[in-house]
């Protein structure tokens, strides 16, 4: 098993931490992982992206120019990464940040209205966890239990009370993601 994922959107959406939770969960299941952020003078509102690779074998390059799965959370990221998805690969996007929807016909396309769902749950900060839930529905890379354990391990104890709300957000994401196109 090898899955190469790019997560891209605005700084402040929780993209890097979503990738980190995915990577940590995979590590806890015994996989090899790399988490490579586009680091730079990043800021809230600027573009942010992270490449997460999960594999059963040693991972060579942490830097990639094509991906199995792209999670796209704003228009500039769609323009940059839609073309980088391998034929037969998967695109997941939140309509909220997208004014011109994807046009590729040779990939699987899923839509998740995570921004709306998080707002409805009165937990806008859990937006990234709703998206993660969507990803795990489409690509069951790690179990929900591993995510729970990863959150417990990575969050400082004072934030442990927030774990159930995060798990709820992931489950919500699993429910609401919808398929728009099969490759």
């Amino acid at each position, binding site marked *: 098993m090898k899955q190469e994922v790019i997560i891209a959107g605005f700084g402040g959406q929780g993209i890097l931490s979503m990738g*980190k939770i995915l*990577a*940590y969960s995979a*590590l806890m299941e015994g996989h*090899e*992982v*790399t*988490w*490579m*952020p586009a*680091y*730079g*003078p990043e800021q809230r509102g600027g573009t942010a992206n992270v490449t997460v690779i999960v594999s059963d074998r040693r*991972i*060579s*390059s*942490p*830097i*990639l*120019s*094509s991906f199995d799965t792209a999670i796209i959370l704003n228009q500039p990221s769609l323009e940059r990464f839609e073309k980088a998805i391998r034929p037969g690969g998967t695109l997941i996007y939140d309509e909220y940040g997208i004014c011109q929807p994807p046009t590729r016909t040779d990939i699987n396309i899923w839509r998740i209205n995570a921004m709306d769902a998080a707002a409805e749950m009165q937990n806008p900060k859990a937006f990234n966890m709703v998206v993660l839930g969507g990803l795990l529905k489409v690509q069951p890379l790690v179990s929900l239990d591993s995510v729970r354990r990863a959150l417990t391990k990575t969050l400082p104890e004072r934030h442990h009370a927030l774990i159930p709300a995060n798990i709820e957000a992931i489950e919500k994401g699993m429910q609401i993601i919808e398929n728009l196109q099969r490759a």
Partner: protein
Amino acid sequence: MEEQEIRLLKGNEAIALAAIRCGCDGYFGYPITPQSEILETLALEKPWETTGMVVVQAESELASINMVYGGGATGKRVMTSSSSPGVALMQEGITYMAGAEIPGVIVNVQRGGPGLGTIQASQGDYFQCTRGGGNGDYYVFVLAPASAQEMADFMDWAFTLAFRYRMPAIILSDGVIGQMMEKVVLPLFKPRRTDEEIARECPWAATGRKNRRNNILTSLSLDPQWMENHNLHLQEKYRKIRECEVRYEETLTEDAEHLIVAFGSAARIAENAIETCRERDIRVGMLRPLTLWPFPTDAIRQYSEKVKSILCIEINAGQMVEDIRLSVEGRCPVNHYGRMGGMVPTPEELVQVITKYCS
């Protein structure tokens, strides 16, 4: 038995945690992207409360390296870290340490240059590090990690070499290795050396005179004959190191018709490209130097008699390629591919490059 701890860590975090665990006595550093997590992680871990390791945010890189000079002179395992322009500032201290034969570890998480350059990854400091970097005839160890795990593993190795040969050791990393997170098996805790152990293992160190002659640690002598003898001693030390301490890794080289030579993050990206090329029946393998100084001259010379060509892939304009050409001495063609200024090649890009040069 103590179990080894497995963590998801940035290369920078791995190096900081490994330093605490390998009995480091002191860290002195000044923040600069892309390596600030080293100082930040040490500040969060507060090792002064556990192992007694000192952590100081110095006022500048010059202060940092001179604190390393002072700590090393007393036989303590001390270190600093910085990124390219900061390491440039440290060169005076490094040459003084080489001259006075003072051990210490310097971590360079490289970024693009020249000058203040950019904060993205680069391997543009190969010359700076492998040629000494400061004034006079000297070398320092240059170790090139290619993963977060190696960032952790090379820490103790660097201290071991620095003390075995009484000279500075540089861990030459880059922004990619420093910033990415990977699975890291942390080394087990090793206690810091006691004052008695230091006095026994480092009889040259300034540990308090007591009942012996003064230990004088200086790079200065106004007697040219003394200074030439000292240089001859240093050169003999470097000869011995070239003979004993070269380390490299070989991947898919047994049946290789062409050899790639790359280090650090460039080697990781090249490895991915080699996997693709192998699927297309291009028989390439890779030699990855773990020590850039001492350089694996003999190994590369031997390959140059077997392979059709050697391709050097670096994230610079062509620096290590000079050492390869000096090793090959015209026995086979040597090509180079590099990116600069913080741009990093992609695996697809390297597949094209390898296809062009190696088939």
